[in-house]
């Protein structure tokens, strides 16, 4: 187990090195001189050569590119993601402040997704071809095909403007979390429901399910213990890969509901060409992605004892 995590950690270092180079390169190779753009933005007029020189010196933009990269990395490793071009707050602090809001949204969305998809997927498989199955299939089709922004606006119109049950926007309280979490969660719920249904259908055919029934176990235990645990194996693999979808979705949902968070921070920074923030965020998101994949791998190995932590299968 520890050796497995250690080995994964080493490969993660390489992945993150690649990510950092790409992130850094993205800014260096973007056309346009950030100094000029940012200064024009700040002062609303064409900046003087002197101001540009000063800005470039202050932000180390005149050093050779490898030196800039090493400087940046040295800071990053110390937890310093640099300084925003516009704000006085360090990027690290800005990200930490907004991180909680996004994490709250993501966790709530996953909860919503699990609460909907586990019963829906299982019931759908147990009652194939019957009414609950058709209902859940239709629901998940809608969930998969409806874009987040559209569902978000729809929910706002119905539940905020018309029924006045939930606020249109904001963050902090549970009431403000409900609609964004449902918006983001329903898409994931739809994916998990479909996966779980087909995986359950496969597993319910297996002979060990016959063994479980032959013991005299009640059907509920056969389904939710013996079949479900096996059906989770392929589901967990795919859901792990959905983490990117979750972050993508969070960005859109935060914009629709005007929630503070990493998504809105990223969009603001991109429009303002505030590259230190963009760089920092992309790096943080990459780290989150890699770590979440590691967690999924650990969970996967925990669910399926045939896969051992030292690598191969028997």
């Amino acid at each position, binding site marked *: 187990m520890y050796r497995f995590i250690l080995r994964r950690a080493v490969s993660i270092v390489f992945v993150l090195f690649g990510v950092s180079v790409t992130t850094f390169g993205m800014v260096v190779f973007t056309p346009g001189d950030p100094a000029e753009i940012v200064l024009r933005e700040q002062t609303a007029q064409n900046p003087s050569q002197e101001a540009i020189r000063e800005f470039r010196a202050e932000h180390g933009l005149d050093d050779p590119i490898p030196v800039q990269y090493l400087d940046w990395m040295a800071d990053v490793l110390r937890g310093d993601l640099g300084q925003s071009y516009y704000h006085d707050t360090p990027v690290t602090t800005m990200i930490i402040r907004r991180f909680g809001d996004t994490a709250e949204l993501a966790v709530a969305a996953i909860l919503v997704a699990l609460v909907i998809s586990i019963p829906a997927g299982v019931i759908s498989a147990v009652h194939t071809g019957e009414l609950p199955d058709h209902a859940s299939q239709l629901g998940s089709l809608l969930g998969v095909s409806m874009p987040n922004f559209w569902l978000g606006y729809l929910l706002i119109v119905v539940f905020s403007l018309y029924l006045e049950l939930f606020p249109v926007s904001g963050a902090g309280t549970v009431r403000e979390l409900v609609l964004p979490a449902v918006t983001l969660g329903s898409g994931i719920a739809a994916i998990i429901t479909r996966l779980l249904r087909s995986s359950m259908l496969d597993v319910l055919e297996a002979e060990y399910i016959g063994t479980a029934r032959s013991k*005299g*176990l009640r059907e509920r*235990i056969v389904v*939710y*213990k*013996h079949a479900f645990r096996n059906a989770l194996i392929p589901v967990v693999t795919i859901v792990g890969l959905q983490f990117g979808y979750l972050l993508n979705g969070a960005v859109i949902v935060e914009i629709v509901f005007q929630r503070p968070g990493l998504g809105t921070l990223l969009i603001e920074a991109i429009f303002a060409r505030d590259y230190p923030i963009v760089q920092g965020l992309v790096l943080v998101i990459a780290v989150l992605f890699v770590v979440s994949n590691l967690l999924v791998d650990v969970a996967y190995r925990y669910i399926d004892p045939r896969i051992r932590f030292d690598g191969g299968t028997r």
Partner: protein
Amino acid sequence: MTDDRPLLEVTDLQTHFETDEGTVHAVKGASFTVEQGEIVGIVGESGSGKSVTALSCIRLEEPGEIVSGSIRFRGTDVTTADERRLRRMRGQGMAMVFQDPTTTLNPVFRVSEQIAEALKVHEDPDSQRLLDYLHVPPFSDRSDWADKRRRAVDLMHEVGIPNPDERVDAYPHEFSGGMRQRAMLAIALAREPDLLIADEPTTALDVTIQAQLLERIRNLNQDLGMAVLLITHDLGVIAELCDRVIVLYDGEVMERGSVDRMLIDPRHPYTRGLLECLPQTTPRQSRLSSIDGEVPDQIGPGSGCPFAPRCEYAVEECRTGEMPRVRLEDGRDAKCCRPEVLDADPAEVE
């Protein structure tokens, strides 16, 4: 319970499967009994309906359907029993060991857990709570489960799994085929059944392990008085272990009776064919595949005697008529329309 009743009484059982090609008549009117404490063998070629018959008895015939007939176990008809009765029957009366040990244990649970579950069901088939079986802390009695796991280890010892103490935490993939089949036997024994149905429990195993496992089953029968319905291809196994034998062909019982008599003096042409192609030197590994012709496909009800196309005595009547059951001496009987071929008294035709 009345003691003069057989433990298991199958009457005119018919089990069908609906498939894209049509209705498969897997079992066509099989009738037989198993008495308390005896070992009854079912023998027949591959596809003759042995497994489907056994599965029907424990009501796991799905996706098949029992379309007619009755199966009485300890006096109750299990074809009409509700879920609750079936749970009780499976937990406290009838247990089955399946054909292929590689796929019959759940890969994600410890073997000891799977045996412990069987002990738990046996103790109380009526109140099974999901959260208890999922080991969710406040709803699950940890010490009770720990106790069951200890007894599971004892059972592993009993069925001959080596070093059971070291295998408390083992998963099925860490077991050999023979050990898995023993584990299946332990799961069955955990329920202290009156009837053990063993569907070719040894076909996937090598010869020495086969012999050990069969010996184990024989001992259980002798020591605990557990009745056994043993399904096999292998007439050698039948000769060694069984009291009575049922010869199944294409879903129908061709001949049934005591093993001793039938092996010396087979009457039905099919049984004779079976015995003739048994090589005298290695009876243990014989397969019943050397009678000329092939097992018919079982789509549609068929007419006449299913063996007629391969039978040297077949006449026109065999291909179209109803096959009567003919009583032979010593309580045996055979299904055939030609008493003279069976060397039987024509008056004994039903």
